[in-house]
């Protein structure tokens, strides 16, 4: 029996009347079932609302846990970074102390020797010989004595004068020689003074450098203390630093990827000469796969090299190796990288040859005379140099990669928290919506059966009115 047949069951000739009868029957049935229907709708919406509320609570709890975990990760990462920074600063201080200040006793000895030398020289230069002043007066006096024509006296006086004069000249010469010697000593002192001054300046510079390092260490220690204390300021600073790191390292990685693409393009064509240009690995040509593998291999070697130098710490197992083993590993990685750079350079050369051959063939097929372009060697050399340098440039990818990986944890956590917050909000809204929908359904239900409801209300009023009249009558009778 179809729906239309059921609808026109009451009065098949008049489907309109039949539908009207059905409507009345339905309204009456709905009026009769009003209370259980209302209860069902109310409980149904309540169940949904409660379920949503519970789900929202669970999501909020997960969000809180994730937030806590993010905080832990952030603080731990920050702590590790600061520890590393402080460690490096101390290492630098130690280097300065070992390199420069370990020679301090010898430096002190040098300074002392220089000072003693200067002192001795100074003392020597300070010993002034007596000036033969009296001689001149005595000579003058002897010269002025009158011999009174006595030749013997005159001769004696002349002899005295000559002797005195000779002695005076001798003394003067001795004085001059001594003065010259003093000047010479003072002249010799000058470089010692200069040396002394330079040595003291260098000592001052080192001390100032150490002082600056100690200031940096102080700042880092303060940061470390704040992280240890888990202050909100430290958390905010670390979050901001993490976001900055994420975006900057991401940008550098994109640039590095472009570099890797250039590197790939440089070796893909000549690779087909080595592994064949027709064989395929899935949708990719085997030569392209080989070129990609070579590029990735170079990046991996670069990573190992950086790890071995302890510039990055992506692999704790490498950091944990002893120094000798790490140095050997770095050497091996470098040798391999060097070989790969050489291979790439030769592939770049081969690429240029192939391109030239292809160009000549294209010209020949087009019926144009084959002309070798001038200054082709410039591109050849350029490609070879690029082929050699790019593997070493890609080696540096390790640094932004480490930053990216570390900051990615924080960023993913933040995104997760945001998504969970949104989910909790959405679920809460859904619960509230179900409650409102239940309320609307109740009203719609009553709207459909408003006629019997109105009749019920009117009858109910009359009944209550007659009950009130009877009560009034009873009360008046009793009173």
């Amino acid at each position, binding site marked *: 029996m179809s729906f239309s047949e059921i609808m026109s069951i009451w009065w098949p000739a008049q489907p309109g009347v039949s539908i009207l009868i059905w409507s009345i029957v339905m309204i009456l049935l709905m009026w009769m079932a009003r209370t259980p229907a209302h209860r069902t709708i109310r409980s149904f919406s309540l169940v949904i609302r409660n379920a949503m509320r519970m789900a929202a609570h669970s999501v909020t709890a997960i969000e809180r846990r994730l937030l806590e975990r993010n905080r832990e990760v952030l603080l731990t990462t920050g702590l590790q970074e600061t520890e590393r920074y402080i460690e490096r600063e101390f290492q630098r201080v130690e280097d300065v102390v070992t390199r420069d200040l370990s020679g301090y006793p010898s430096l002190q000895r040098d300074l002392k020797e220089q000072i003693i030398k200067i002192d001795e020289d100074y003392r020597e230069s300070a010993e002034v010989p007596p000036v033969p002043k009296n001689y001149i007066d005595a000579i003058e006096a002897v010269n002025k004595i009158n011999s009174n024509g006595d030749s013997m006296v005159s001769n004696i006086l002349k002899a005295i004068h000559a002797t005195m004069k000779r002695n005076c000249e001798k003394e003067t010469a001795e004085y001059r020689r001594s003065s010259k010697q003093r000047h010479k000593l003072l002249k010799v002192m000058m470089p010692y003074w200069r040396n002394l001054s330079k040595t003291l300046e260098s000592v001052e510079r080192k001390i100032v450098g150490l002082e600056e390092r100690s200031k940096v260490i102080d700042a880092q220690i303060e940061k470390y203390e704040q992280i240890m204390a888990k202050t909100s300021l430290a958390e905010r600073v670390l979050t901001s630093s993490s976001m900055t790191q994420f975006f900057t390292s991401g940008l550098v990685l994109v640039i590095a990827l472009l570099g890797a693409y250039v590197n790939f393009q440089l070796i893909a064509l000549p690779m087909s000469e080595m592994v064949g240009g027709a064989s395929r*690995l899935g949708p990719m040509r085997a030569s392209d796969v080989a070129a990609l593998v070579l590029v990735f291999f170079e990046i991996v070697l670069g990573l190992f090299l950086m790890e071995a130098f302890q510039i990055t710490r992506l692999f704790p197992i490498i950091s944990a190796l002893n120094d000798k083993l790490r140095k050997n590993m770095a050497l091996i990685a470098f040798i391999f990288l060097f070989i790969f750079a050489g291979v790439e350079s030769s592939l770049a050369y081969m690429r240029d040859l192939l391109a030239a051959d292809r160009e000549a063939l294209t010209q020949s097929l087009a019926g144009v005379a084959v002309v070798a372009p001038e200054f082709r060697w410039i591109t050849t050399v350029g490609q070879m140099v690029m082929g050699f340098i790019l593997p070493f440039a890609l080696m540096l990818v390790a640094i932004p990669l480490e930053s990216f990986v570390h900051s990615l944890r924080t960023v993913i956590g933040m995104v997760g928290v945001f998504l969970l917050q949104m989910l909790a909000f959405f679920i809460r809204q859904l619960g509230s919506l179900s409650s409102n929908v239940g309320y609307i359904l109740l009203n719609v239900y009553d709207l459909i059966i408003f006629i019997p409801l109105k009749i019920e209300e009117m009858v109910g009023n009359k009944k209550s009115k007659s009950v009130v009249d009877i009560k009034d009558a009873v009360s008046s009778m009793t009173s």
Partner: protein
Amino acid sequence: MKNTILNKISKLIILMVFSVLPACSGGGSHATSVVLLLDTSGTYTNELEKAQSIINYILGTLSSGDSFTVARIDSGSFSEKDIVAKMTFDDRPSAANSQKRTFQAAINKMVAEVKSSTYTDISGGMLQAIEFLEESGAGNRHVFVFSDMKEEIPEGHIRDFPINFAGVTVTALNVTKLRSDNVDPREYLDRLADWKSRVESNGGAWRVVNDLERIEGLLQND
């Protein structure tokens, strides 16, 4: 628990390796195989210089692992004797380039020495071409017919049977109008329509390219 996870990971890796291995192939399914049939009947030999540029274009487009065959359409074309040049290009690009030079030289020689034939056995040529394409095992298969598409078969030759064109794109190039076509153009249109239905009803794709200035994308499938 840890062992179970490791086992699952190792199984996954093995599965991935085995799923990749079948994909490692000689590149046959990705390769292109082209057969170009040159009509050498009557006055159409005058058009062969145009065909040279088409051949050069195809040579420039094909790469390592692809195959190229050029054959004549003459009185009885279902024969290896009509092959002018046939090559599968080497895996190494440098070797492939030198093969292309040799191929070009062979075509130049043929164009210079060609003699016109009395009949035009296009169907025989098509059969021969389909055979070559099947042998090559290439994924992209093309037959180019440089002809006016007017078939004239010697008496006794049987060609009125279906040819399996499945997976093959047949392109009629430089379909010149005959004198009779000028009198009744319907002849020309009917000729093309006949070939179209013959190719398409046997699983092939049909194209006509008359403007030889626009041959870019000639090796792309519709």
